[in-house]
């Protein structure tokens, strides 16, 4: 019997229509757990590195995490893994919601799609019955719109649906996979799904998942639950409201947006409006938000309520969470929140990433204002800010005219347009749009997180370490007093000594050695979350979370029956993380790609930045190109990877 996992993959060849339920090798679970870790291994074994996003050989994997579907709170993430059309590297957009749990209850840990369907289809997974169904009647339909159609068709109100909209069908590089409640948005998973001609994947399961030591497991979960209650009743002091709680940033509940609107940049990551949040704005934005939110909602088995059902005036209902509440208004320089609710609803139906897309539209507007794009490119476009954004969004998702170029994202569009457009692509890392943040002093921790992690996405791998030093020693002492999440006591001193100004402040403090330890720890817990299927809002992405390095392994071992302690768990995720890096190295990624945008900070320190990278690479067991050394790979039982890298001349024997 298999515990926590089902022990089966669903393999679907879209070209032939062949569907197989394949028993998995338990050894692979021991080596990589589930979720991201396991998916990386599948890519290494099965997809040659020359493969491009839209090649039939590219796999599209929809995976649950190892603990999804168990009673442990908040393990509900679906990890989609595929080669990104935008970065051309191995990407893993993820989403919460209900899909992963339903898949487990249907009897599968993951669905692996290969090749392309000759026509638009949707997949219906109902326990052992799996069908590839015609989806011609769903062509062009919105991601929310089709939910009712499919649910009526199947008469299964509890079926979970992951779908693409028009953007995915048209292979827009920022196309998302929407699940009603949440979405896997980053890096173009929706484009690959569209390329494979899958409109939706619908799943409903009514089978058992087993726990190896159930009573012990529940005892651990109960302790976590107690801490969740404690954190919900005791928000952290001394940090911004948005950082004080647990769960995804509570954007649907909090109405005070002074921090986002004044610290994040407007337009194409261009302007900070430091005096934006006036009393009048506060009043108007808060009242719009309260009017729009019909109900706060949760993901599967999660006590937090990070999302909301939006019901605003004549706008068809949709669901929303997090920073997408603001991204369109801010990118368009529109000073009201109503515009954001209106356009976000359309964008959700189209299925586009709410972070990248507004920046791409703003990039288009900037190029037009700079005369690089012309009236001809904008023929028929309304002159007002709101109308312009709506018009551009329509062009992008349909790949019409200038929209066809912008649909590839700012990096590729800038190079296609040329004529100076490249300079306007100023907010991408590894070809992917980042948070619209432009700050003053270089931050060594963020420098490493932005530069080196394989997520290449907004949140990167931040979370457990405070974003900035506390102003007084008393506040620091208060913060470290109760901090059981730390991997080791000596980290406390780093925080106690970290000051806003002076010798012990950014960019030279924390020192490169300290930064390496802190960033490595944060990366480790992100990778654990992504393998186990935990929402990072309850683990890696918030301060003082309920799940941490001292309790993950207890849950894993009691659920699976595997004998895994803290060090063992660290080794497993380290193995998968290095395998991921090695795969991206095969795809051409090198040190030169590992850098934040030049204007991310006003004050840059090139020598220190090089030293930070050197130190971190060394700490990780990588060579100075950021490639895992043979020694490191052997230590992680990845001898086959070392051999491959040597055979290709990427690692040279004896020289690392």
């Amino acid at each position, binding site marked *: 019997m298999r515990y926590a996992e089902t022990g089966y993959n669903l393999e679907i060849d879209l070209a032939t229509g062949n569907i197989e339920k394949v028993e998995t090798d338990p050894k692979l679970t021991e080596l990589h757990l589930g979720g991201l870790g396991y998916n990386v291994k599948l890519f290494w074994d099965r997809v040659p590195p020359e493969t491009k996003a839209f090649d039939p050989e590219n796999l599209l994997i929809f995976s649950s995490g190892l603990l999804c*579907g*168990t*009673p442990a*709170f908040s393990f509900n993430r679906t990890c989609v893994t595929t080669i990104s059309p935008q970065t051309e590297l191995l990407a893993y957009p993820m989403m919460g919601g*209900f899909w992963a749990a339903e898949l487990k*209850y249907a009897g599968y840990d993951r669905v692996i799609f290969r090749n392309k369907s000759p026509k638009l289809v949707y997949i219906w997974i109902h326990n052992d019955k799996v069908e590839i169904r015609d989806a011609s009647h769903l062509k062009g339909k919105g991601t*929310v719109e089709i*939910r*009712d159609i499919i649910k009526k068709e199947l008469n299964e*109100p*509890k079926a979970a649906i992951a779908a693409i909209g028009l953007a995915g069908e048209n292979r827009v590089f920022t196309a998302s996979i929407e699940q*009603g*409640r949440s979405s896997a948005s980053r890096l173009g998973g929706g484009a690959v799904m569209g390329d494979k001609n899958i409109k939706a994947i619908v799943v409903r*399961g*009514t*089978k*058992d*998942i*087993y*726990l190896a030591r*159930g*009573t012990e*497991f*529940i005892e651990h979960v109960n302790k976590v*639950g107690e801490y*969740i*209650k404690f954190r*919900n009743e005791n928000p952290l002091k001394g940090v911004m409201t948005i950082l004080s709680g647990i769960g995804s940033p509570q954007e649907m509940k909090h109405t005070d947006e002074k921090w986002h609107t004044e610290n994040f940049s407007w337009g194409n990551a261009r302007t900070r409006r430091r005096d934006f949040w006036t009393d009048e704005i506060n009043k108007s934005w808060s009242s719009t938000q309260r009017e729009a939110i*019909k*109900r*706060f*909602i*949760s*993901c*599967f*088995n*999660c*006590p937090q*309520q990070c999302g909301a*059902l939006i*019901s605003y005036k004549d706008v068809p*209902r949709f*669901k929303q969470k997090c920073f997408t509440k603001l991204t369109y208004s801010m990118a368009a320089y529109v000073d009201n929140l109503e515009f954001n609710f209106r356009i976000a609803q359309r964008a959700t139906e189209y299925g586009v990433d709410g972070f990248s897309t507004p920046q791409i539209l703003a990039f288009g507007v900037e190029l037009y204002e700079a005369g690089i794009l012309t009236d001809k490119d904008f023929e028929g476009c309304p002159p007002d800010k709101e109308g312009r954004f709506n018009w551009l969004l329509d062009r992008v998702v349909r790949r019409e005219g200038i929209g066809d170029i912008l649909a590839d994202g700012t990096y590729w569009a800038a190079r296609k347009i040329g004529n100076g457009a490249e300079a306007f692509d100023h907010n991408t890392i590894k070809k992917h749009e980042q948070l619209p943040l432009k700050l003053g002093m270089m931050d060594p921790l963020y420098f490493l997180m932005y530069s080196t992690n394989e997520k290449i996405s907004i949140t990167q791998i931040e979370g457990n370490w405070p974003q900035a030093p506390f102003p007084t020693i008393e506040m620091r002492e208060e913060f470290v007093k109760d901090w059981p999440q730390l991997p080791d006591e000596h980290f406390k001193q780093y925080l106690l000594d970290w000051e806003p100004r002076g010798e012990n402040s950014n960019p030279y403090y924390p020192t490169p050695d300290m930064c390496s330890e802190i960033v490595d720890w944060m990366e480790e817990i992100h990778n654990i979350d992504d393998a186990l299927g935990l929402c990072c809002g309850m683990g890696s992405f918030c301060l003082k979370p309920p799940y941490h390095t001292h309790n993950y392994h207890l849950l894993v071992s009691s659920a699976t029956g595997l004998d895994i302690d803290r060090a063992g768990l660290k080794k497993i995720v380290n193995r998968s993380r290095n395998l991921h890096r090695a795969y991206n190295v095969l795809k051409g990624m090198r040190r030169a790609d590992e850098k934040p945008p030049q204007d991310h900070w006003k004050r840059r320190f090139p020598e220190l930045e090089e030293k930070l990278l050197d130190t971190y690479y060394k700490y990780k067991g990588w060579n100075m190109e950021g490639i895992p050394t043979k020694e490191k790979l052997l230590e992680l039982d990845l001898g086959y990877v070392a051999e491959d890298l040597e055979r290709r001349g990427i690692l040279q024997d004896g020289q690392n």
Partner: protein
Amino acid sequence: MAKIKKKIKSIRINADKCNGCRSCEIICSSFHATPRHSSINPARSRIQVILDPTTDIWLPVFAGEYTPAECMGRGKYVIDGKEYDDCTFCRASCPARDRFKEPDSGLPLKCDMCEDNDPGQPPLCVQWCYNEVLIYEEREEEVEEEAKLDEIDLGLESLVNKHGLEKLVDAVVRMTQKD
């Protein structure tokens, strides 16, 4: 018949607070697994969240009595602009639908208020509902004392209901004559 005091256990459901996480379903199925917490399957749960998120319907319903026949009509309720059919609120395990039946055998499920749990503990679904949608309540009521049927009587009664007394008697006679 004599009046006796009976402890009535109930769960008050504040559906307006429900955000559809289904934790109640998960822990119910886990608690009722044998051995306890050895498996999870929300389809086995004796509480089901009825949901239609776009119309803002999230409604936990507990499994009640088994009924051998479905009812005649199908009414509609409209509450606060949301349309529900009769079946939505119905707690019966009924031939008309799959709700409150073991997914493998089709046998009916019924909420037992987790009576096997340690004394004084509210049902598990209540404990796991952190948003206080489910509130456990106990009250005392005076009821007529019922003559309690033993197990054989109960079994025979359901056979009589299904096949009629005559057929049952015939069967018992046949069985005794076999020896």
